[in-house]
């Protein structure tokens, strides 16, 4: 028996590794290799047409850490995330709750609210140029009529505000769809019981729906935060980072340095520094999430 089983075991072990191989190749090829290449570049001086002209130690990192433009873009990105993600979560949750209550037309609303999710971000950015133009742009004109006369695309705060408005429009439905699924997963008898005790739907939402849908919502927040930290297309298509660098997010700065001007050394160092910052934020987020779930 022993002699018969051994080959089966061997075969099984090999087969397991064969099955793992595609995933391993994928991770090595598309995660480790680029990461190590970026790390290597970050210690090098790179010039278009000459390639790597030498290794410069930590000079690129010193340059990045002392770069006012880089830290400004980190700040712009932080403002972008801190404003847009909470607004999207609140609006998305409220919309999901309202649809979950099943008012007339809820099904149609669910379809309509999902539409922006299927629109290209760069198209939304370019659309924003016409919508926020103070010379006849729909949004700018309507807001001006109710007293909100903002030089949207030609002022430091107007540009970032316009980009956030477009981002909220684009991504609220993402939160909505995930939360809606989360709410649907809560057993209906819990709602029935809660409605007997509660004075209104608001209390049911606050006391029952939010806590029970929190695990799903927190995943939506996590995904949205990660995406938002990488934001590029909407603000760049809308303002190309301007006026000045007022709407230049980190992705745009890295893009300009690395892709536009081929300074792969400095651009790679920027990428690594930002990776560290984002990893730290996500670590804190996961820690908090684990605490809440525990």
């Amino acid at each position, binding site marked *: 028996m022993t002699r018969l089983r051994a080959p089966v075991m061997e075969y099984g072990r090999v087969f397991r590794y064969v099955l793992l191989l595609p995933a391993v190749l994928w991770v090595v090829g598309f995660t480790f290799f680029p990461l190590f290449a970026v790390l290597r570049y970050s210690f090098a001086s790179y*010039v*278009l047409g000459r390639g790597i002209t030498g290794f410069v130690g930590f000079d690129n990192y010193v340059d990045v850490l002392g770069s006012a433009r880089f830290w400004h873009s980190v700040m712009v990105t932080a403002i972008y995330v801190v404003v847009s993600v909470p607004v999207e979560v609140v609006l998305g949750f409220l919309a999901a709750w309202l649809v979950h209550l099943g008012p007339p037309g809820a099904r149609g609303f669910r379809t309509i609210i999902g539409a922006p999710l299927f629109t290209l971000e760069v198209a939304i950015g370019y659309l924003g140029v016409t919508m926020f133009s103070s*010379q006849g742009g729909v949004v700018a004109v309507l807001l001006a009529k109710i007293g909100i006369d903002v*030089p949207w695309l*030609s*002022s430091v705060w107007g540009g970032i505000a316009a980009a956030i408005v477009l981002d909220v429009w684009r991504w609220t439905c993402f939160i909505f769809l995930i939360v809606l699924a989360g709410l649907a997963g809560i057993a209906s008898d819990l709602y029935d019981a809660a409605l007997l005790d509660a004075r209104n739907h608001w209390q049911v939402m606050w006391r029952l729906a939010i806590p029970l849908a929190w695990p799903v919502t927190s995943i939506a927040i996590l995904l949205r935060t990660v995406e938002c930290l990488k934001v590029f297309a909407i603000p760049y298509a809308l303002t*190309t980072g301007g006026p*000045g660098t007022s709407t230049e997010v980190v992705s745009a700065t890295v893009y300009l340095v690395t892709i536009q001007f081929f*300074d792969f050394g400095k651009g790679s160092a920027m990428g690594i520094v930002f990776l560290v910052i984002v990893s730290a934020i996500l670590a804190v987020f996961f820690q908090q999430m684990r605490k809440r779930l525990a």
Partner: protein
Amino acid sequence: MSQDDKAEQFARLASRFLRGRIDRRDFMRTGLQLGLSATVLARLARSARAAMLASAPEAPYESGVTSARAAFLRDKPYKGTTINVMVLKATVGDGLKYHVPHWESETGGRVNVAEVPIETLHTQIFSDLSSGLGRYDAYMTGCWYYGDFFVPKTPYIAELSKFLADPKHPYWEPDQWLPSMRKLYTWNGKLYGVLFDGDAQALYFRRDAFDNKEAQAKFKAKYGYALPNPPKLMKEMHDLADFFTGWDWNGDGQKDWGISLHAKVNEQGFFHFLTLAAPYVISPDNRYFFFNPNDMKPLINSEGHLRALVDYVKFLGNGPREQISWTLGQGWDLFLAGHAAMEPTWGDLPTLGQDPKVSKVKGKIGACPIPGTTEAFNPITGQWKKYDFNQVGNTNGGTWHCVISQHSKKQEATYDFLAFMANRKNAFFNASHGWTGVQPGMRYEFLPPVGSSSVAEWQEQGWNGDDVVQYLKAYYDTLSATVQEEYLRIPGTAEYWHELDVNVSAVLGGQMQPKQALDATAAAWEKITDRYGRAEQKALYQASFA
């Protein structure tokens, strides 16, 4: 010298003579130096001239056709050949596309055109070249990318003299270029670009508004001197911009503006600053605007540049605030719609102004070179100096044209297509039609006594006679001014200018103070220079003034 060398030299000589670059006397003299007899040369000269045709049935889209060209086209020489060209997604790209079917019908070849927006054009060109992919045979380049083509030991782009010497290709006339324009198509004296565009910035204004007696009286009452028509000094331009802002001077019931600018970051708005700042720094005593040629230290944060930037910001109040986020076309639209009194820009504006579909200002467009100053700062000596009148010409802009990839395996066919567009008939068509985005740079496009064109020739293309006379004079004066702002073409120019663009935009948006912005620009330029190599950059920068 081998017999082959002599034959090649003679072929080049004959080509130069054929193309009118040297006269008969030079042809004979140089031919004799090569050892050919006078009788043979005289016969060759006659036959060469006779070989030029005004037109040929094989080349219906060319005028000025060599007999070799006509013979070459009989067999549809590029049948089965497809070339790929990357162009700027803008009017100049449209201009190139217009000629594609014509060239295809003459030669049997095919042209694939890929349009790329300006914010990614540099990336796309140099990604293709540096990766060695060579997906494109030619690229439409702005002249400020030129230095980057010459960073590798073997330049990324092909030199053109061997094609130019071959009479089977379309005939065009490099000897007709104004020197300031020819310089932008060459590198170290060798030709790399084929004629397409010729950019310079001049001041365009509403002639009718400036000529208006009532407006002239109002202006004199307000500023104490006669309305300057056209403005010669920056101060006059500022007063005019201020004067024409905020009231309905064109009688359409809406308030109008003194000036129109486009200043969106990462576009071409920074050229406004380069142009308007020039007379504050460039003078008969100083040619250096960007760097000190002795050590490549940036000059951009000098007192002259600072005063220029402070004055530049003042113009913003004389146009819609939205200008800060306007692209080039949006800036032109305000002028073409009749709501701006002035615009310092490229020749596209008066050219587009002739098209009644987009313009309300045909027959009302005045033009003059960019106004000058009476005082300029010399950043090398650190001194201001007074002048009676310091006016500075420029070639600011893209001067968009195509260059041929060194990786291309179809260089000959590619050159043929580019030379086709440079043939006089097509070049004149381009320069006289606004939607092509092309401006003049050849003598035959200007009016006598400096050129050989005529008002009637331009009127045939739909121009108003008065508009074209002012436009061509202003353009020629700008391109051929004795004091010129030298164009920056060293490696990394796109990056240097990007830093300037971002910081000037930050001033316009209220994000930075002018001094802070120029100091930040200078600091960024230092790092770029160090990365590319200070010694190499210095040598190239000095060479650009040779």
